[in-house]
């Protein structure tokens, strides 16, 4: 395979990779079940631990599959960079769209709240001029 390892070594490396990916998957599922209180009755793992742990473990699995199984770790650096660097665009896409989605949620909530407001018939124009009302237009 051009990396100076013998045939037997490369085979055992593949099976080690299999057990590693399997173990990481099982840990992920255990964390998910713990986090939702399925394993220990009455105990729920905090989302602040659960989410970063699962994202980190999945990122590790992805790294391992690309580096070892897809052999990216043994390709020329220019090839690896030309494929991996464009993916950095996704960092911004994730931040921007989750931000946008959160805004949709809060905007919808605000509209629902406003719809339930009862304006007293005696109120004058000045009283009704709520600066909050105009933030949605900005």
């Amino acid at each position, binding site marked *: 395979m051009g990396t100076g390892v013998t045939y037997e070594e*490369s085979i055992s490396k593949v099976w080690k990779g299999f057990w590693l990916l399997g173990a990481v998957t099982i840990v992920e599922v255990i964390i*998910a079940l713990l986090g939702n209180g399925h394993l220990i009755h009455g105990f729920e793992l905090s989302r602040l631990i659960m989410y970063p742990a699962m994202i980190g473990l*999945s990122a590790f699995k992805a790294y391992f599959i690309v580096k070892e199984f*897809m052999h990216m770790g043994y390709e*020329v650096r220019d*090839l690896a960079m030309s494929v991996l660097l464009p993916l950095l665009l996704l960092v911004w896409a*994730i931040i921007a769209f989750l931000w946008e989605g959160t805004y*949709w949620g809060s905007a919808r909530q605000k509209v629902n709240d406003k719809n339930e407001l009862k304006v007293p018939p005696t109120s004058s124009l000045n009283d009704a001029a709520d600066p909050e009302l105009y933030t949605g237009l900005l």
Partner: protein
Amino acid sequence: MATETTALDHAENKGGDWGGGTSPMKASYGKLMMWYFLLSDAFTFAGFLITYGTLRVSVPTWPVPDFVFQSVPFLSGHYPLIFVTIMTFVLIVSSVTMVRAVQEGHRENQKGVVYWMALTIIGGACFLGCQAFEWNTLINKEHMGLTVNPFGTHTESGTYLEGDGHGIKAGDTFAAGDPYLVHMDHKTHEFNFLSYKNEAGEKGQQTLGPKAFGALFFFITGFHGFHVFSGVIFLLIIMMNVITGLYIKRKNGYEMVEKIGLYWHFVDLVWVFVFLVFYLL
């Protein structure tokens, strides 16, 4: 690979790596283009998964994955996430057998390539079978559709006033955040929304869950499943070519097997993220 690099070493090199006459990436055109295809495909999947995240954070409640995905074939009862874990393992195993096929290809071992590719195809077919079971459960048993999502989440705690004949009895209590499945009446084909009384004594009724969940689920797992399906077809075609001895004549270490291998690992890679976003988070 080995023959290629020696050819490159002897090539005349006038303008550096990028001056022409050499192959700066030290990879064939086909392999390079497979990588760039996978890059573009990664953006497509990322677009889908980011859409899922965007819609999920835009609504107050969302179906709880370990409540939605808890059926296992031949077993009754609730086994949260067990079946998708098995599916993940099937895909990891088929990825490993694919690596073995590529390794045997480098050694020009025709029989070894056929053996490991056949196992990979079986793995892919098993995964598709598992997905068929999962879709069938959701569509025919739980009546989820592209625009209908019977998986809801309670927004307040309370007590049921009636039972649904599927485990919920009148008088059962629930807390805010608890998931529920709205069952369909088999005679009228209409959803049977249970009424309840909240802690303040007000009467309420179950509602359907966020609409987008069904469409997102079927589009994203369907798009991935279609990749697995086309992967199985391509693996079959290339395995036929291996059997007929086409790649022996090429003397390039079964590079075609390596290329389809890249695609197959990519399908496994995407599943890592589908598994994370849909089933774990």
